[in-house]
């Protein structure tokens, strides 16, 4: 087994890399932290999830402070949907504790592996979305729930060079997806930003940029709902969480500054490969330990 000091050093470097790569392509570092800890260092999955969950709060809060200035994220939509994600995250955390306690950790590995592979597909969707950006598929028709809950707004789109108004559609469906996103976040120690964006972008038909920035804003609050439970349960090991938390925050800080300038296509391809490999490995680990 690895020496503690070697672990601290390697994990710090790996976390910086995960945070950096994650923010460059728009996916949270948590997706990579858990596989690195479990597959790379043989850390039991609950401690990996605990460490990841804490680091997710750091990246989200750091990113959100930058995005607030852009005035892209929708505070009301985020707050409303956080009611769903936090509830889901509490249930997810309870589920994780149950699975670990009943020797069913393999379920977590299988779900995690699936999420990694699905996320790799989503990266392609993002690339496509950015290319054909048009305001045609943005909903602007008010409906009963979106009016009652004021789920609308307007953002300035630089590529269209105009202000784009929008209004949420299928609010109940979006709320349900957010409940699922929260559950998955709590279960796996992720931000589950991908599912949040799908909920807002596809289900509620909000503009993609509003969806991604609002999702970033929501992630930290979602994570906090389960992080506290994991902390009290003893899943947050301070030696393990130390290098992960500062590493991911540092990495994503650097990445979010760089991402404004470049559109790193090759990084996305690299990330897709990393996600698929990690996904297959996690599935394998799950199947082996059934």
């Amino acid at each position, binding site marked *: *087994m*690895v*020496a*503690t*000091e070697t672990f*601290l050093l390697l994990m710090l470097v790996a976390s910086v890399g995960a945070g950096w790569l994650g923010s460059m392509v728009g996916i949270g570092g948590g997706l990579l932290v858990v596989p690195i800890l479990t597959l790379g*260092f*043989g*850390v*039991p999955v609950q*401690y990996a999830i605990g460490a990841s969950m*804490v680091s997710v*709060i*750091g990246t989200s*809060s*750091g990113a*959100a*402070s*930058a995005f*607030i*200035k852009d*005035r892209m994220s929708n*505070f*009301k939509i985020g*707050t*409303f949907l*956080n*009611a769903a994600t*936090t509830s889901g*995250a*509490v249930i997810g*955390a*309870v589920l994780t*504790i149950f699975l670990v306690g009943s020797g069913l950790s393999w379920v977590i590995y299988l779900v995690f592996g699936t999420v990694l592979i699905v996320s790799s597909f989503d990266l392609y969707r993002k690339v496509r979305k950015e290319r054909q950006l048009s305001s045609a598929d943005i909903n602007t028709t008010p409906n009963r729930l979106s009016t009652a*809950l*004021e789920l609308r707004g307007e953002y300035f789109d630089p590529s269209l060079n105009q202000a784009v108004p929008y209004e949420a559609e299928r609010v109940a469906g979006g709320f349900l997806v957010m409940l699922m996103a929260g559950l998955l976040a709590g279960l796996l120690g992720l931000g589950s930003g991908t599912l949040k964006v799908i909920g807002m972008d596809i289900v509620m038909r909000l503009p993609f940029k509003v969806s991604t920035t609002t999702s970033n804003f929501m992630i*930290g*609050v979602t*994570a*906090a*709902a*389960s*992080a*506290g*439970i994991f*902390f*009290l*349960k*003893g899943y*947050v*090991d*301070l*030696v*393990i*969480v*130390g*290098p992960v*938390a*500062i590493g991911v*925050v540092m990495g994503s800080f650097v990445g979010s500054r760089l991402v404004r300038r470049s559109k790193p296509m090759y990084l996305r391809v690299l990330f897709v490969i990393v996600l698929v490999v990690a996904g297959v490995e996690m599935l394998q680990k799950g199947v082996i330990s059934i």
Partner: protein
Amino acid sequence: MKEGEKEDRVEYDLESAIGLALRYGVVLSSALIAVGLVLSSFKVGSFAGFPPTLEGVISTGYGKPVYSMGTLGAQLGKFEPLSIIEAGVLVLLAIPFFRVAVGGIMFVAEKNWKYVAISALVLAVLLVGTFIVGPIEAR
């Protein structure tokens, strides 16, 4: 129109305040964790270093937080590396609570009672999760 602009201004100031608080919170927490990690490589006072292997750290439950504020405070006074890391983690855990609360205050300033209620609901879920579900699950 003037009224709307003024409301926008209040909202913008509060949002900037939230942004700053978030950033400094994260910086403070990262700094504490970093100091804790750096201190761990020096054997200060009664601290004899982490267990030599990662396996040892996990199997002995060495990195488990202390759950008493009194104990944590006493250890912080002795610059125990783990307690400094724990303080950093606690700062990080507190940030979203703070953020939801400030968001709620922002809606109070706007007299948007619907969203004051929704913010309160989110805060309630966070509090119930951490202080009711958490202790039950920890037993």
